[in-house]
């Protein structure tokens, strides 16, 4: 039996007769002998049970039992059971891009709801129906700013995720745009540094709130200055923090992007995630990706369609705003269901719970000898800690004790080997945090003993 193929021998014979050929091989006559594969050696097929056991075996080689204080833009939030149950409906996950709106109202309405939720979250006027992930969404925003301003220099604040920085660096370098990264001072956006780089060639300044070090900011003053120079402001955001933080819309930001993984998506070792993008209504025609719009059918009843498709590659080909074809509809649906379940009050409470637990961890860590918590800016659920030794060494010993202690900043920032960022979500209990602090204290004591002996 060959899995998922249902033609029987009799079917095959009937079909070959109808076509008028003797064998399936005859159907491949356009492939000449000189095109035949030089090799095609793949494993033998196995049973479902066997493969699943193998995958579970591999899964045991991953460390997922660590108590995690690891964030860096990707967070260990709880996903309510109803989210996966709903996206597991075949009507959603085995449908395709809604090209035939009469038979795709389910997907289209859910995407319209998603766009509305993203606008509510960010305080912006319009949103698209999702992009690949937070990093590539930020790159698309940078390209969008270049299309709007017809300038070709991108300035990025050093507090933006270094992972995103690497991505933007790749695309600007390979696509021949200028890219400047400004220095952060004490983990905060430095106005002096940023303003120094803004000029008449600059298309956009990219900011992040909270930034990679965890610092919260109000970028209104940067926005005002940028706008005086005809420069657009792009802000990358963390949706859960927007449960309480000032919206980019109220700071007059032009384009907002972000990583929606925190809205009901598992960590999945890096993907699929959820990129989103929102902007001002006047820029909607320059925005990449699918957009769902409300309209009426012939009977006048409300319905939804993909709209402004003239921006897209399948219509405009080489003049499209982006080469993007697919988005991440199912992930957008996942996030939309999450936002509806958690709800207005629940979402605010979720944000407050994250804030309070992080504050508890911050205060507890501050009491440990040798640990210095950076307090130059307010923070949300992630913050920077200075250690007496290389953070990687500490991380290593904490893993032995069952903790993913944070993310060492030395990985991406020169001269910051002794720093790490620590994230605390609603899943971490007081006990987890107490145990973590006790373990860290123990590790540091051990290290001091090693140095003195």
């Amino acid at each position, binding site marked *: 039996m060959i899995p998922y193929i249902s033609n029987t021998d009799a079917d095959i014979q009937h079909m070959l007769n109808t076509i008028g050929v003797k064998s399936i091989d005859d159907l491949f006559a356009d492939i000449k002998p000189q095109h035949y594969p030089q090799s095609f050696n793949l494993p033998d097929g196995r049973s479902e049970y066997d493969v699943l056991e193998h995958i579970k075996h591999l899964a045991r080689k991953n460390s997922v039992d660590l108590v995690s204080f690891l964030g860096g833009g990707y967070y260990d939030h709880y996903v309510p059971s109803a989210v996966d149950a709903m996206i597991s409906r075949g009507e959603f996950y085995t449908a395709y891009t809604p090209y035939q709106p*009469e038979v795709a109202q389910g997907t289209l309405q859910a995407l319209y709801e998603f766009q509305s939720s993203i606008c509510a979250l960010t305080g912006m006027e319009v949103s698209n129906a999702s992009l690949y992930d937070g990093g590539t969404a930020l790159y698309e925003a940078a390209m969008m700013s270049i299309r709007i301003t017809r300038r070709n220099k991108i300035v990025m604040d050093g507090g933006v995720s270094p992972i995103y920085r690497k991505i933007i660096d790749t695309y600007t370098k*390979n696509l021949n745009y200028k890219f400047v990264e400004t220095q952060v001072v004490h983990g905060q956006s430095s106005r002096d540094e940023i303003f120094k780089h803004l000029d008449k060639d600059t298309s956009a300044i990219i900011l992040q709130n909270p930034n990679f070090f965890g610092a919260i900011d109000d970028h209104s003053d940067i926005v005002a200055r940028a706008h005086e120079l005809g420069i657009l402001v792009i802000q990358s955001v963390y949706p859960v923090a927007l449960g309480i933080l000032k919206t980019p819309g109220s700071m007059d930001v032009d384009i907002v992007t972000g990583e929606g993984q925190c809205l009901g998506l598992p960590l999945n070792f890096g993907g699929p995630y959820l990129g989103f993008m929102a902007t001002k209504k006047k820029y909607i025609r320059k925005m990449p990706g699918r957009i769902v719009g409300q309209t009426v059918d*012939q009977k006048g009843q409300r*319905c939804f369609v993909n709209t402004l498709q003239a921006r897209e590659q399948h219509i405009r080909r080489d003049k499209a705003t982006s080469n993007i074809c697919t988005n991440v509809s199912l992930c957008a649906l996942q996030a939309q269901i999450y936002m509806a*379940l958690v709800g207005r009050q629940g979402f605010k409470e979720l944000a407050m719970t994250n804030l309070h637990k992080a504050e508890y961890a911050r205060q507890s860590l501050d009491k440990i000898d040798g640990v210095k918590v950076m307090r130059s800016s307010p923070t949300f659920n992630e913050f920077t800690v200075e250690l007496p030794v290389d953070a990687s060494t500490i991380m290593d010993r904490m893993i032995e004790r069952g903790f993913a202690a944070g993310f*060492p900043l030395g990985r991406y920032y020169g001269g910051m080997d002794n720093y790490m960022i620590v994230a605390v979500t609603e899943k971490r209990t007081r006990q987890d945090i107490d145990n973590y602090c006790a373990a860290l204290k123990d590790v540091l004591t051990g290290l001091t003993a090693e140095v003195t002996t």
Partner: protein
Amino acid sequence: MSLVFEKSVDQRRGYKNPALDVPAAGKIDAKYLRSEDCPFPEMSELDVVRHYTQLSKLNFSIDTHFYPLGSCTMKYNPKFCEASARVPGFANLHPLLPQLKDGERLTQGALEVLYDLEQWMCEMTGMASFTMQPLAGAHGELTGVMMMAAYHKAKGNKKRYIIVPDSAHGTNPATARIAGYDTISIPSDENGVMDFEVLKSKINDEVAGLMLTCPNTHGLFNSDIDKIAQMIHDVDGIMYYDGANLNAILGRCRPGDIGFDVMHINTHKTFTTPHGGGGPGAGPVGVNKKLEPFLPVSRVVKKSDGTFALDYDYEDSIGYIASFYGNFALLLRAYAYILLLGEEGLRAVSDHAVLNANYIKACLKDKFHLPFDRLCMHEVVFSAKKQAERGVHAVDIAKYLIDQGIHPPTVYFPLTVKESVMVEPTETESRTTLDEFIECMLQADLESQENPGMFHGLPKTTPISRPDEVKAARELNTNYFTQ
């Protein structure tokens, strides 16, 4: 149907947050805070579940309907692959873990999946290496074309053009343009493949490369492919294989053996990862030795002790093209699928996809015009021009099929065929289903002769009738809160 926001009732709750077991001591200055709560709806879990269950029922999907959408490969998505992707040891794995010092030891299982998948994809395609990072097919194209550009830059080549046939997917010219190239479009000849003489006349030293789907979007395999590759290579151009139709030739032909230098695979087409209502996808990119130095970082390597690691140390790499290691949960579904099917099953994928398409072609060609009357591969392109003369256009036939419980084929693509109706049955459909489809198509033809007025106002069985798309674009309403 009402929007989720219209069902909101103050103070109704659908989810209980973990308890606050620490003092409420976190404080942020009001100037950093939002002035109003985020206006998400307030609903019970049942409200939410019922809302989205009802919405789901407004969709056609593979699980509920035959879905022969040409060029999209709507094959069955095995439940087993879904289960594989939800194994907690993978689903809960943080992507930054392997970036800790010696952190790779914490994710050996995941790295092994990526490593094995790369080896298998190389074997299936004849490429030397793959990157799993591109997050969709079009993202793979951009990655491939950036590598192409890096290759020319490294060699000091002055290149301006990328050649694309007129039957190509829109992503090809869009990608070429974004990567800074002008495109040259080559018409199709009377056999439905790229016009060889025109191509020959357009090739010059400024040609950076050629992007080609093979078989192409007419469902036809270009038997001159090796000659074309030779001509492109003669001007030091790069051959890009758009893997959108790789599902037609598994075990029959490998892009790497017939002159392609770089390619992408759409995992949802070649294997089976769900389309998800329009993504997420995954678009791994393969290269031969010529382009290998330019692959994005990180790359997964196997060390001499048999363990796996991430290597970032490649001087000529184009850099990071995605945040992490690709859309891992989709790659894991592809991994599970390949292991289940094995070599024999993978060969059968293409054999039956091609058999099914040719069967439909044979059964419908007397009634529907065939612009290219020859053996096809995994999909067949008809023209509804005979029916259009009777006032029944491709779109009308599409809407008619909807009322018969069949998702329409792709219509008006490829752009090269007037009134095109592009049918891709896939290997997972049975002859029984194909016969039902054929019967419906023949009935549509009959109705176009006897009762063409009947098509007016279709579909009639759907939750909505034809939407006013002009209104949608003119009176933009994309956000409930500012409508």
